[in-house]
């Protein structure tokens, strides 16, 4: 593989990984902090994508404003959903959460079908992000993908700052380490969980909104990403945002290079799962697992 091609493939891997990270970060928060297995996470991604489809004509060139509006709507939705529904799941066993959230996927899919229909839709990239930059003489790279990667990095930094440098982040980390102790110290766990859940939903929806112009909007789009998302979260170590970032990039590389390697490409589908199996066998709790959850 010539160097130019190799570097471009690396860029592809990183960009895919970053978008995965955005989606996985929400899941690792909900899973790691709240201990809730939420199979409907893919549905929130789909929700974000369809929101982008519905809102884009109204916001025109104000893409960033639309993203912000989408995030706020999703966060509000997550807040209400947690209060009305998920808060009942904490006392339940993990498996009951699995069953409940699976049923939720069905409900969301049908509601989506009833409200927006079953057609495939596209979301236009705003003019100021349209166009491509040349990558040497090989090919061009869409500006929008660079924007998407930058947005993911910005979110990653933002998450790091919130979790490690703010009071809210401190409470989140405390709640993750030892729920009862944190409650005993006066942390309002219920409200904390509600905020974390809303944040997780918002992150998933944001990932959907950012991905929408790239991936288009279609039925069942959540189920494909859901499983990769869980893989990323588990490889990185549940509850660890840095772990999710590392794992996302790893998955990005395995997925990208797996498709182009000469003999392996026939088995490319196996790649990510092989990676997960190997890592978990060598490091049974993921790469950067949080201790004491």
């Amino acid at each position, binding site marked *: 593989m010539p160097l130019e091609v190799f570097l471009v493939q690396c860029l592809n891997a990183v960009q895919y990984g970053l978008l995965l990270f955005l989606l996985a970060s929400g899941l690792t928060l909900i899973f790691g902090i709240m201990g809730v297995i939420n199979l409907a996470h893919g549905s929130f991604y789909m929700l974000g994508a369809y929101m982008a489809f519905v809102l884009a004509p109204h916001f025109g060139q104000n893409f960033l404003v639309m993203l912000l509006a989408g995030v706020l709507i999703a966060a509000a939705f997550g807040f209400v959903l947690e209060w009305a529904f998920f808060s009942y799941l904490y006392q339940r066993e993990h*498996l*009951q959460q699995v069953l409940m959230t*699976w*049923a939720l996927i069905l409900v969301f899919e049908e509601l989506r079908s009833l409200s927006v229909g079953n057609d495939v839709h596209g979301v236009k990239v705003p003019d100021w992000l349209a166009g491509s930059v040349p990558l040497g003489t090989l090919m061009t790279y869409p500006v929008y993908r660079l924007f998407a990667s930058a947005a993911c990095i910005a979110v990653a930094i933002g998450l790091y700052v919130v979790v490690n440098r703010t009071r809210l982040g401190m409470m989140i980390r405390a709640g993750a380490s030892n729920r009862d102790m944190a409650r005993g110290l006066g942390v309002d766990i219920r409200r904390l969980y509600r905020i974390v859940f809303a944040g997780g939903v918002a992150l998933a929806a944001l990932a959907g909104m950012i991905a929408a112009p790239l991936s288009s909007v279609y039925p069942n789009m959540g189920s494909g990403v859901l*499983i990769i998302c869980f893989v990323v979260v588990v490889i990185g170590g549940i509850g660890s945002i840095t772990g999710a970032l590392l794992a996302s990039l790893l998955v990005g590389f395995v997925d990208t290079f797996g498709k182009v390697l000469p003999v392996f490409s026939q088995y490319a589908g*196996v790649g990510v799962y092989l990676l997960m199996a190997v890592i978990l066998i060598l490091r*049974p709790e993921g790469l950067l697992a949080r201790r004491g959850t």
Partner: protein
Amino acid sequence: MANAKTAWLVPVAGAVALGLLPLVVTTYGQDLVMRIMVFAVFALSLELLVGTTGLVSLGHAAFFGIGAYITVLLSPASEAGSVWLLLPLAMLAAAAYALVVGALSLRTKGIYFIMVTLAFGQMAYFVFHDTPVGRGTDGIFLNLRPVLELGSAALDLGDRMHRYYLTLAALAATYALLALVLRSRFGRALAGIKVNEQRMRAAGFPTYPYKLAAFVLAGALAGLAGFLLAAKDAAANPELLSWHESGVVLLMIILGGLGHLRGAVIGAAAFTLLRELYGTYSIVGPLADHWQLTLGFTVIAFVALLPQGLIGLPARLRTARG
């Protein structure tokens, strides 16, 4: 409340009822019940892992699919294969893969164990879907269903009634086997592992071989279910190994009620019948178009109101009344 001595009455009565069912239902009804029975075997095999030993596997469909594929792949093209050969081979192949997966996965615990089993399930799926092993992504078909030769007589699985009763016999045998296993020392060791593995180890129990044995047995029984499905549909396709299928069987035993064998059977029946009910236009009219909504809400209601699963229904009704 049934006591230990009469606990076997209900399953036996159930088996008798299933045996008499073909007399009163249509051929379509018989196919539906057969499907339920196949999935009951599949669910029972997972119940051994999840309900009894506390090992949640999200890759169990791999063994199911391997059983089905072995049955179809090893059947001769122009004559009926022999059940004496195909059934044990199907179970053996599934058990072999279970041995490999279990040996590697059981080094992990909790959610990580779940994900590793998922990984191995997906790997098996991609082998059958993407490589020549599966002979195509659309699946493969059986020309002639296998035959069970007993001396001069033969049970031809091409005959619907023979199929039905063989499946029923397999279900009864699986249930009886697992009931015996649960009462045995092995079964009680598994229960102890589920409750507190560390304590078992402290008491000197080598938990790893026990867990592995349970995993392999569960895999073999899932392979049996796969054989039964291949005999029923005369087909195998890669989707049988997908995580969707693994998810469905897990949902069945959760819905039915974990920790009890009858929960697996009830869950398989309830899940299948609910999906059938909500998708049938002659029963629910235009609502059948929106079966995802009705099924979703029903399951949510079940989980909310019946934390023990469907087997907890009688108790719940009693407390509601009393």
